[in-house]
């Protein structure tokens, strides 16, 4: 019976189906908010679904110079990773089902979608896709460093726990170092999502969507779905790690939804009020500015722990 429960959890709720539905909704929120910022009306609610179904029905072209198996499997790997993350996060938040070290697993799994994009791009053999893939790689190297420091701070502040359930119970944001790491993590997530200002890897007007350039039909649909689910999962991850987790009793539901929407809208607004940076600027930004700040926050947190000052 255990096994069916897990399969149910992975495929229906809170896994695949649930994540996909809310993910598509988040995409709609993204596009709608973008449109409102730009003085437009924006697409109808069902638009992301239409896009997805349409892509499923399109022909899938495979580039002649590419490696077929890798080219086709890369999107699926990415999607499965995100769904897993989503499942783990929700199980931890809802029923407290967790295992020791699930935070570490989640952090690892979150790199996989980016890797999948990279591998897919490289497998297509297109020079622009290769450029995009190499940019993606540099970007991963850039943002992972501050991101990991943030995670270390989180672990420290939640009393050396690497279990999501316990981390979710401590609202890290209630202190100086907490605020700092939350903001830095937000920017890292912007990069993970591939949103402006860090959309260097798929810069449409520079390298024509980069790694996605050769994708069409079903694999493209899967990639779009991955992006949609990321847009749902990453804010949830932020909430779990920094904002005291999800709460589903009474008014807590409203509060949770509000938290989620606020983060989503914040991400979208950042996306729409900045131009794209260059890849070298992005790397510099993450390494020379964010990483030291994150490290400083970490040191603050250490002091806070040692001298038991809660606001540090």
């Amino acid at each position, binding site marked *: 019976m255990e096994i069916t429960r897990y399969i149910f959890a992975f495929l229906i709720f809170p896994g695949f189906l649930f994540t996909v539905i809310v993910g598509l909704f988040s995409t709609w929120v993204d596009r709608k908010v*973008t449109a409102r910022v730009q003085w437009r009306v924006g697409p109808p609610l069902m638009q992301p679904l239409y896009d997805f179904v349409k892509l499923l029905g399109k022909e899938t072209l495979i580039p002649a110079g590419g490696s077929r198996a890798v080219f086709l499997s890369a999107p699926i790997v990415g999607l499965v990773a995100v769904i897993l993350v989503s499942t783990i996060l929700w199980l931890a938040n809802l029923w407290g089902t967790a295992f020791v070290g699930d935070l570490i697993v989640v952090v690892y799994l979150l790199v996989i979608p980016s890797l999948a994009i990279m591998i897919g791009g490289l497998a297509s053999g297109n020079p622009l896709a290769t450029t995009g893939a190499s940019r993606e790689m540099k970007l991963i190297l850039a943002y992972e460093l501050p991101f990991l420091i943030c995670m270390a701070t989180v672990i420290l502040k939640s009393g050396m726990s690497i279990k999501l359930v316990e981390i979710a119970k401590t609202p890290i944001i209630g202190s100086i170092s907490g605020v700092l790491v939350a903001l830095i993590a937000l920017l890292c997530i912007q990069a993970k999502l591939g949103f402006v200002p860090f959309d260097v890897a798929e*810069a449409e007007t*520079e390298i024509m969507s980069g790694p996605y350039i050769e994708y069409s039909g079903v694999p493209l649909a899967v990639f779009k779905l991955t992006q949609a689910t990321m847009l749902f999962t990453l804010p949830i991850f932020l909430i779990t790690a920094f904002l005291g987790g999800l709460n589903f009793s009474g008014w807590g539901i409203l509060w949770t939804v509000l938290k989620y929407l606020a983060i989503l809208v914040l991400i979208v607004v950042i996306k*729409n009020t*900045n*131009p*794209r940076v260059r890849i070298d600027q992005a790397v510099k930004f993450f390494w020379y500015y964010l990483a030291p700040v994150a490290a400083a926050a970490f040191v603050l947190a250490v002091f806070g722990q040692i001298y038991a000052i809660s606001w540090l």
Partner: protein
Amino acid sequence: MQKSVISIGPYHPLQEEPELFMLTVEGETVVDIEVSIGYNHRGIEKLSERCNFDQSTFVIERICGICSTSHPFAYTRAVEDIIPVEVPERARYIRTIIAEGERIHSHLLWYGLAGHFLGYNTVYMWMWKLREEILDVMEILSGNRNNYAMFKPGGVRRDINSDDIPLALKKIDAIIPTLDRLKKAILDDPVLHARLKGIGILTKEEAVDYCALGPTSRASGVARDVRKDAPYGAYDRVDWDMIVTESCDVWGKAVVRLLEMYESIKIVKTCLQNLPGGEIDLNIKSIPPGEGIGAHEAPRGETFHYVRSDGTNRPARHKVRASTFMNLPTLKATVPGSSISDATIILAAIDPCYCCTERMAVRSREGKKLYGGQELIRLSQEKTKKIKREMGIK
């Protein structure tokens, strides 16, 4: 490091027109650039020689959709130079109004596209929203959104209705506050500064050497503007300033364009307020044999037309030199050494327009030119006949 070639184009979201840039890159750094055009060549000069002087204006207007006033302006000036005649005062003012309106919308368009190239779609949307207002003004004044069809040799085709002027003025005044807001948003954006400053440097000497024109040269400190150097239209009758910056980079070009819009608004407003009465057209009946040249400062730089008449009602030779033709080679100086991301915005910074620039040359494999003008004409006529025969068209 290994060199590879990245091609931008011919169909690329960077620009609306088809053209091909071959960037030779080492990693992310561009070491060489080659521009290949010809995807847009329509043989306008030849077509113009088929039409009579009046019809030609319409063909010339279709050289480029953004400069749909600049080319007719230069062309009509060239034709008037053959006779030679001076157009009536009112026509001068009307021409100036239309030309400056076009400059505003062209610069707004550039801003929008530049924002789009930088991934800053909000700027794109806002700028184009503002551009719609300008197009409205143009529609009020000329009846058309884009191809205004206002010009003819000897004057203008249509008069501006004096009842429309207050509405147009009101609309223009309404644009200024929005433009101010956008100006502030652009000039104060730190990320934009980081992206645009210090890239694509075209020094003053290089700008002179490459004969750069328009905002491209004015951003490098070369104060060159046909409207000031050899005034025509109503440009010497109104008060305006030439915008010159010394920063030489992409940022400088952006600033020049931004401030020029204000000057243009000033010119349009003054002209509309002081519109003199009188005739609008000289009703030229025939053009004597002779040659004429005409120049106009288009939004991208000086546009130059040469027309030769042999006494018939058609131009015997019509030669067009658009501003991008001179600005394009400056890319050789600005692009190598920059990264791919910068290269795209540097390419866009000269506001290239390939429709205006298209030439054709036939070359052998070794790169030697094989044909002169006469042979080319003969060859093309033969080929057209052959194709028509193949398709069964009489």
